[in-house]
């Protein structure tokens, strides 16, 4: 306990919370409006307006990035800065640095809003932003981390509350995920290639993509739940001990689940199984957290009827429970076989973002605004109306996506005549069948957006009626810190050693030979029994140890990093260090010609991966529809990989050679001219705009550095090769009645599309020769 000290009055810096709150509301409206707009494009293809910067492929990343980083990001920062200052009883040390954080983050959002519609993208979901913006994001995150840990360093409350644990996990994990998935080599000022390719890129991408959901959209919001829900309900969290179990099990298990986005793909099977197993295990901590949140409302349910803040929180936490039930369900391989590539996944994601993130944000904003401006909420009935209109919007959205997703999956997989013929051979049959669901989804989104506009108006009127104030508090400043724990002491303590021992035993049990397996199992059982025995007899000591840990942020943070990193290391390192060219399963991708490479970059620029996969799964329906299933070796030189995650249109992995060049030209010019009922946008500019051949030299050089076996060639040689190939295609198009210049973008794109699915057989001798260059 404290040995002495004094009382001082501090004034919290709430101006930064006000800034992030307003930004969160504005960017929330922008992100949701973009969502409604892209939903309208799926319902009515005409909404693409034949403008390159307004097509679905370019705007969908704008919507997802705005929803995640602009809306939830700003909301998270507002919630964290406000609650952390009060939980640790210290004010923000540098007024300047938090404002640098704020303005840099807004500049990043604006840069994203400009570059994504222009087609400047890395071609990886939720990681589309180009490398200069990536660096800015990393700098902004570091500044955020400095601000946060600086507040902790100056804290006057020794013990860290559970919300702060979740904030710590968020900060350290997002930093690791973001940096690893954005490792790349620039080819120019606005373009770069990721250092990972093919299966490695796929694994790293979904390790990041899944955990962006986990550590950007979930853990910070759980921290916010643990602070604001008790605050609004006026009662402490249901079980503080359950929150301990919730935190450690969640941060440990979550990181392993990424491969469930790649089930039945060419990803090695052991990784798929791990991803599924840990996804199912996530049920327990997720529901522990949900129950802890909902049971906090015990005895306060009468308030929920009147108070819109509690309504939003109760529904938000319920949606957390529902989406974390649905997530593991979708990660079970047999369910995933149906749901993957369909709208079911889209509905699942939106039950999380609209229901969990959006409603928690609304509840927090309604709670904060009157306190930050020292007034009453302008209209409680309006906030209640927002709740109901938003709820109806979400339900319409996710129900329509269930119907669309399940029917889409069933129709495309359906066969007749003993599984030898597709029941619906035309992909567009499934599109037409779900047209009404596209309209319903759009309506749901519009209702949700309307609710958000009401929130913006309600809070604007609240702000107009009040005056900005900062909270003040009298705090006790201890003379010297109590409960000091050194890092070495924390790492060598009995609970940590027992945990490490059990994990080591599990690892040996999983990978060892028979004898080692049995030994590891025996050791694990003994370790668990001894640990339980110690919990029984030394409980006081272990509890006190944890209390002391909570008063020492450095050991706590280091242990959190260990818990988080174990899963990533086990899954990613074996895949990254493997010799790519030696693990191609008998088939290897042929490196792209210069023209094909230019065409591929156009494919990525237009965001084709948002609607088309390049990964055929080993199912009868897919093989009959698209061709032989995809092998690991067929994308090893793809930087970035383009396996995709959604089939709004058909898979393209084996589209090469399926149609003549003229079909592709007509299809890109006006898809409905060759594919009646298509809802793909027109791409008329591809017939006029010139292919960028000037950057080929730097692109090929970077890819060679990354292990693609290209010979050394000058810029002139590359241009000459590209133009020679383009002339052949343009001549053939001319004979078919279409006159285009050889350097038109459509020619390069056709060259790329016609190459898809082409590969070479690999003998053992060839593999050995390739391993020298094929890392």
């Amino acid at each position: 306990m404290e040995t002495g000290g004094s009382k001082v009055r501090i004034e919290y810096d709430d101006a930064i919370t006000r800034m992030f709150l307003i930004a969160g509301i504005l960017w929330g409206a922008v992100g949701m409006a973009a969502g409604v707009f892209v939903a309208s494009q799926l319902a009515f293809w005409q909404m693409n307006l034949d403008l390159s910067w307004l097509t679905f492929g370019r705007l969908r990343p704008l919507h997802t990035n705005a929803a995640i980083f602009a809306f939830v990001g700003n909301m998270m920062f507002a919630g964290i800065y406000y609650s952390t200052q009060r939980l640790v009883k210290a004010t923000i040390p540098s007024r300047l640095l938090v404002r640098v954080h704020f303005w840099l983050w807004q500049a990043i959002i604006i840069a994203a809003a400009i570059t994504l519609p222009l087609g400047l993208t890395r071609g990886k979901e939720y990681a589309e932003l180009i490398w200069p913006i990536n660096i800015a994001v990393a700098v902004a995150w570091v500044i955020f981390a400095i601000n946060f840990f600086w507040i902790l360093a100056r804290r006057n409350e020794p013990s860290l509350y559970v919300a702060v644990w979740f904030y710590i996990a968020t900060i350290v994990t997002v930093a690791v995920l973001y940096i690893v998935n954005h490792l790349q080599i620039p080819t120019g000022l606005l373009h770069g290639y990721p250092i990972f390719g093919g299966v490695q890129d796929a694994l790293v991408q979904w390790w990041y993509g899944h955990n962006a959901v986990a550590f950007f959209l979930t853990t910070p919001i759980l921290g916010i739940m643990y602070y604001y829900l008790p605050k609004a309900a006026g009662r402490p969290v249901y079980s503080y001990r359950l929150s301990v179990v919730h935190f450690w099990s969640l941060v440990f298990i979550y990181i392993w689940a990424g491969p469930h986005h790649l089930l039945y793909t060419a990803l090695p099977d052991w990784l798929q199984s791990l991803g599924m197993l840990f996804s199912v295990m996530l049920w327990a901590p997720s529901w522990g957290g949900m129950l802890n949140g909902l049971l906090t409302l015990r005895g306060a349910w009468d308030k929920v009827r009147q108070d819109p803040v509690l309504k939003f929180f109760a529904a938000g936490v319920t949606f957390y429970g529902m989406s974390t039930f649905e997530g593991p369900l979708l990660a079970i391989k047999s369910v995933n076989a149906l749901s993957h590539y369909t709208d079911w996944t889209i509905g699942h994601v939106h039950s999380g973002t609209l229901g969990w993130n959006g409603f928690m944000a609304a509840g927090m904003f309604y709670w904060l605004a009157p306190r930050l401006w020292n007034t009453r909420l302008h209209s409680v009935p309006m906030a209640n109306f927002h709740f109901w209109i938003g709820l109806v919007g979400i339900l319409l959205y996710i129900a329509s996506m269930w119907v669309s997703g399940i029917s889409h999956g069933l129709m495309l997989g359906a066969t007749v005549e003993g599984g030898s013929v597709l029941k619906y051979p035309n992909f567009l049959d499934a599109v037409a069948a779900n047209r009404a669901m596209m309209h319903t989804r759009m309506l749901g989104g519009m209702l949700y957006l309307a609710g958000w506009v009401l929130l913006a108006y309600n809070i604007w009127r609240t702000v107009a009626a009040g005056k900005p104030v900062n909270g003040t508090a009298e705090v006790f400043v201890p003379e010297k810190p109590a409960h000091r724990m050194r890092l070495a002491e924390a790492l060598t303590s009995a609970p940590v050693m027992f945990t490490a021992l059990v994990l080591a035993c599990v690892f040996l049990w999983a990978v060892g030979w028979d004898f080692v397996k049995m030994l590891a199992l025996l050791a694990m059982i003994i370790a668990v029994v001894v640990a339980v025995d110690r919990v029984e007899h030394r409980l006081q000591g272990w509890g006190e140890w944890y209390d002391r840990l909570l008063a020492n942020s450095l050991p706590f943070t280091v242990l959190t990093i260990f818990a988080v990193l174990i899963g990533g290391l086990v899954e990613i390192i074996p895949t990254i260090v493997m010799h790519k060219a030696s693990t191609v399963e008998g088939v290897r991708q042929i490196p792209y010609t210069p023209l094909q490479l230019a065409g591929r970059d156009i494919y990525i620029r237009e965001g084709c991966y948002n609607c088309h996969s390049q990964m055929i799964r080993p199912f009868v329906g897919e093989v009959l529809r698209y061709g032989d299933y995809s092998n690991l070796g067929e994308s090893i030189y793809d930087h970035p990989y383009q396996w995709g995650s959604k089939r709004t249109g058909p898979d393209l992995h084996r589209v090469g050679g399926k149609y003549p060049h003229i079909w592709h030209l007509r299809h890109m010019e006006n898809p409905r001219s060759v594919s009646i009922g298509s809802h793909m946008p027109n791409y008329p500019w591809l017939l006029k705009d010139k292919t960028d051949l000037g950057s080929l030299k730097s692109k090929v050089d970077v890819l060679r550095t990354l292990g693609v076996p290209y010979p050394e060639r000058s810029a002139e040689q590359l241009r000459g090769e590209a133009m020679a190939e383009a002339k052949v295609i343009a001549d053939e198009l001319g004979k078919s009645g279409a006159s285009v210049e050889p350097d038109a973008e459509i020619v390069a794109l056709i060259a790329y599309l016609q190459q898809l699915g082409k590969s070479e057989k690999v003998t053992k001798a060839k593999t050995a020769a390739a391993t020298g260059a094929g890392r």
Partner: protein
Amino acid sequence: MNVIGMTVFVGLVLVGLFVYLFWHQARGSGGPVSDRDALMPLEEDDGVAPADRRGPGR
């Protein structure tokens, strides 16, 4: 067959562990993890100060 045996074995171990821990918890000898911390969010600010351009401080 091995998989079924292992699943049953691990399942029984987990069930046994949960039953034991539940019994332990129900006996009322729960750990001393500080429940006092759970009260932290309930502490209210004791006043407000008009926000000015200079910003807050001690």
